[in-house]
């Protein structure tokens, strides 16, 4: 069965990029950027993950159904994180004493 064979050179290049990113994550952490420390750290992590998925996990040369599954995984994870954070972010909008037990209609 013929499949794409990635040359060792490509693997080493990806490995080198991952190492540089790791050092970069560590270096950025030593500088205080406030909120942007989180953004940069997660941005680098997403880039590293996409390198691993594309080259080490061969998604670039995978069957189209696998590629769609990977894309859907990202969308599902997005829904999970986004809807959860929407719920928790909006909870403070409702006053505490208007829980179901203090709801006017029930009194």
């Amino acid at each position, binding site marked *: 069965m013929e*499949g794409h064979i990635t040359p060792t050179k490509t693997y080493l290049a990806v490995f080198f990029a991952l*190492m540089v990113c790791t050092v970069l994550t560590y270096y950025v952490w030593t500088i205080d950027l406030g909120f942007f420390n989180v953004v940069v*750290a*997660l941005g680098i992590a997403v880039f590293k*993950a996409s390198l691993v998925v594309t080259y080490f996990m*061969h998604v670039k040369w995978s069957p189209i159904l696998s590629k769609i599954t990977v894309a859907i995984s990202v969308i*599902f994870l997005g829904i999970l994180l986004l809807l*959860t954070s929407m719920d928790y972010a909006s909870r403070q909008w409702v006053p505490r004493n208007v829980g179901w037990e203090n709801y006017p209609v029930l009194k």
Partner: protein
Amino acid sequence: MSDAHVATVDQAHAHEAHVAHQFVNARQQYESGNLGMWLFLQTEIMFFGGMFAAYGVYRAWYPEAFKIASTATNVPLGAFNTVVLIVSSLTMALAVQSAQLGKQKRLVWMIILTMLFGAAFLGVKAIEYTEKWHHHHVPGPNFIWEKEGGREVQILYCLYFAMTGMHALHMVIGLGIMTWLLIAALKGRFSPSYYNPVEICGLYWHFVDIVWIFLFPLLYLI
């Protein structure tokens, strides 16, 4: 069924003994296995995603406590483990390539190297857990936090042990899978025409690496 027909079927399958009965050809078998593994990894992404969501919510609620707590983690050990896992991912990728090229000896060595790096990761993790135990940083009745925000910090340590613990469990399972792969490779079961299990085990190994890529900055740095 006539004898002539049986003979034709046998001939059709003779050159592809590794293709299971239900598949038309090796290509279809490969694509089915690959898709199945990705569907499994999708459930794994959602599994770890739930814990990342919990982390996100608590971090948004107690940003200061999380910042103080992350100063107590051992960053050099965490960084070392990140490097160890990336190296193990490289050797795993090279194991798949070796199988594709039919280099049996190199395949065996790459699997052994991957297992050694995986074991090294778990060893370092054990050192870290022992350190946390001695510092009374394990959540529960013996938890001691000298600085302010002990309650919130304890939540972070719950998340720390839940997330790194589940990750470590995946590593242990990964080592079990790699042991099976090593035995199969030593038996010479893989060839350029059949390397599906090597690739699928590789997908699992790389996934566990990706989880750590996110855990390291979230739990140790920011």
